[in-house]
């Protein structure tokens, strides 16, 4: 039981952590809760289904599995990046410098728009995510672990490591950190702030796309509501770890998912979602800066 809940928690935690990255990166730079981020994740899953359908009719899923797996992740990543950039351009950039409530209301509007846009064009019913990877399962310390879970964990951890390296080592990553610390100062020393912000949205959305496709593969089913709850939980994870802090988002994602998984296993499966919301409320009230503290940038001064 314990080992099984641990494995389940780790897999879900990888997904939460990937989505939480998007919240935390954007918050670090703009001090804005990108409320529509959960919808980007949901769109990622839907684009994954569309790609699989096209690949299926072309017969590529039979002939070249490796290529189709790459495409099933790559195309949603590109699409979600495009959605993220458009979202920023349409709903957030015109409101920069407005009172803090305005972008939040605009974000809620955007979330509502995207969710219902998908409902209109894709229908309100659940969509099946075709099974692509047929991997066996094995037993480890009394827990059933299947290949897909390993695949998800490895891919997620790999991506997180790549993102950390990117932020620490590259020039663009440095520009992102500079913008997070002080936007005006960064623009004075020659950072193209608008481009950096657009890029931040793109990176967050790419991570969300991967999470969306993973969840589609893992549960085999997708609907247009998944963005709201997953978004809330990922936001909880980001706050738990310390919003604006990339390592914190990862820590928070895994921690929240493990707590939730043990709660579901040992206490009550019905009240699982309530538990996540309770964690959010309790963390925000007692330690709003999260476990690792904030980004050290403007977010801390508000």
């Amino acid at each position: 039981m314990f080992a099984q809940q641990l494995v389940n928690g780790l897999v879900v935690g990888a997904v939460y952590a990937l989505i939480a990255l998007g919240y935390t990166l954007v918050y670090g730079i703009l001090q804005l809760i990108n409320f529509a981020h959960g919808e980007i994740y949901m769109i990622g899953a839907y684009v994954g289904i569309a790609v699989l359908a096209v690949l299926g009719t072309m017969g590529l899923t039979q002939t070249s599995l490796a290529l189709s797996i790459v495409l099933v992740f790559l195309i949603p990543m590109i699409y979600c990046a495009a959605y993220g950039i458009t979202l920023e351009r349409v709903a957030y950039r015109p409101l920069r410098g407005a009172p803090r409530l305005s972008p939040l209301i605009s974000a809620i509007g955007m979330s509502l728009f995207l969710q219902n846009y998908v409902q209109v064009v894709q229908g309100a019913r659940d969509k099946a995510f075709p099974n692509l990877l047929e991997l066996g399962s094995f037993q480890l310390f009394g827990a059933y672990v299947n290949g897909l879970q390993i695949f998800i964990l490895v891919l997620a951890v790999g991506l997180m490591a790549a993102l950390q390296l990117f932020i620490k080592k590259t020039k663009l990553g440095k520009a992102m950190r500079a913008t997070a610390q002080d936007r005006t100062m960064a623009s004075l020393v020659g950072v193209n702030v608008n481009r950096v912000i657009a890029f931040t949205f793109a990176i967050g959305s790419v991570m969300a796309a991967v999470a969306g496709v993973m969840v589609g593969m893992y549960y085999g089913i997708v609907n247009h509501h998944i963005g709201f709850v997953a978004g809330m939980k990922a936001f909880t994870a980001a706050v738990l770890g310390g919003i604006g802090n990339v390592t914190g988002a990862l820590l928070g994602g895994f921690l929240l998912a493990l707590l939730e998984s043990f709660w579901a296993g040992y206490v009550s499966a019905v009240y699982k979602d309530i538990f996540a919301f309770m964690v959010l409320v309790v963390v925000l009230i007692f330690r709003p800066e999260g476990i690792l503290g904030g980004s050290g940038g403007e977010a801390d001064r508000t």
Partner: protein
Amino acid sequence: MSAYARVPLIGLWFAFLALPLAGWRNSLWIGLGCALVVLIVSVARASVQSGYLAWPAGRVKAGFTTAWSFIEEKSYDKRYWSLFLLLVIALPWTLDRYSTDVLVITGIYIMLALGLNVVVGFAGLLDLGYVAFYAVGAYSYALLNSWYGLSFWPALGVGVACSALFGVILGIPVLRLRGDYLAIVTLGFGEIIRLVLNNWDNVTQGPNGILGIGRPYLGDMRLYKPMHFYYLVLALCVITIFIVNRLDKSRLGRAWAAMREDETVAECVGVNIVYTKLSAFAFGAAWAGFGGVVFSAKQTFISPESFTFFESVIILCMVVLGGMASIPGVMLGAFILTVLPEALRELTLFRPMLLGGAMVLMMVLRPQGLLQAKGGRHHLERDEPQGEAGAGR
């Protein structure tokens, strides 16, 4: 020409975005539609700038502004209000049952929106879980009525008290939080209430909801027709408007405004933030409870489905669309957002989508809402004698 060169590119971009979700045929239409909108906007802008249409455009704009500020001005004039009230009292005699019913719903939403306006507009605390208090009011009447046979009028008091209590219970832990963190906690609170109602089968009967809630009595008359509820809701609305209006002008109302503009400064000049914040939550929640009790008496059936996050967003949208902190504005917002969807029945599927788009547009183009609140910042400077800024301890 660069403004026009963008047009096909923007069309292509949105077509590209829509492609995997909407299919190629719809994407083509979406792309064309976006391009057309951008084209019209840039043609209009360019012709105004280049002076072609500057004069007529200027006249139209000036005329519109004058007319609108006339409406804005008059919407605060008491004489027009009594005229309006007479009109509203006579209105249901000219309407059929269905339209009257729609107006009853509108009235309930006006109460809710005015209540949320106390929290969001007056006190500047963004509450995304407002529907939770509405649910508390509705369920307190439904449960007390079906278990203990409590009748409507005492339940109205109990429901309001319960909601206000919940408002304070939510308010105490979030005293320290500001801005968007507060918004998220209230959202979490709203979801917790809904999930509890949905899962606590023994008491609330879960997703099945509660059936056969009793109708109110006025003396010996049983109120069940839309017409009866129309006058009930109208009376409650008038009371709500009166009290909210008085609140806005009271010492407490000025303390709310001070807290909204700058919490730290307000505290420095002697506003008791704890009391001021909690009273905002309690007053806001009380009206949600009011609306909730009336709603369950009118529907005679309630289930958790009526109290989703979407409902909170709609009420917030009424406040934002109409104009935060402006009482006529909020009423107008509530009216538009309940009557318009009824008029556009065929577009039900698109309704939430359009609502979301409208919220974004409103924030970008006219963040102060349709009818701007009177005074705003100056209100404080003008009315406040020195050394008496806000509620005492």
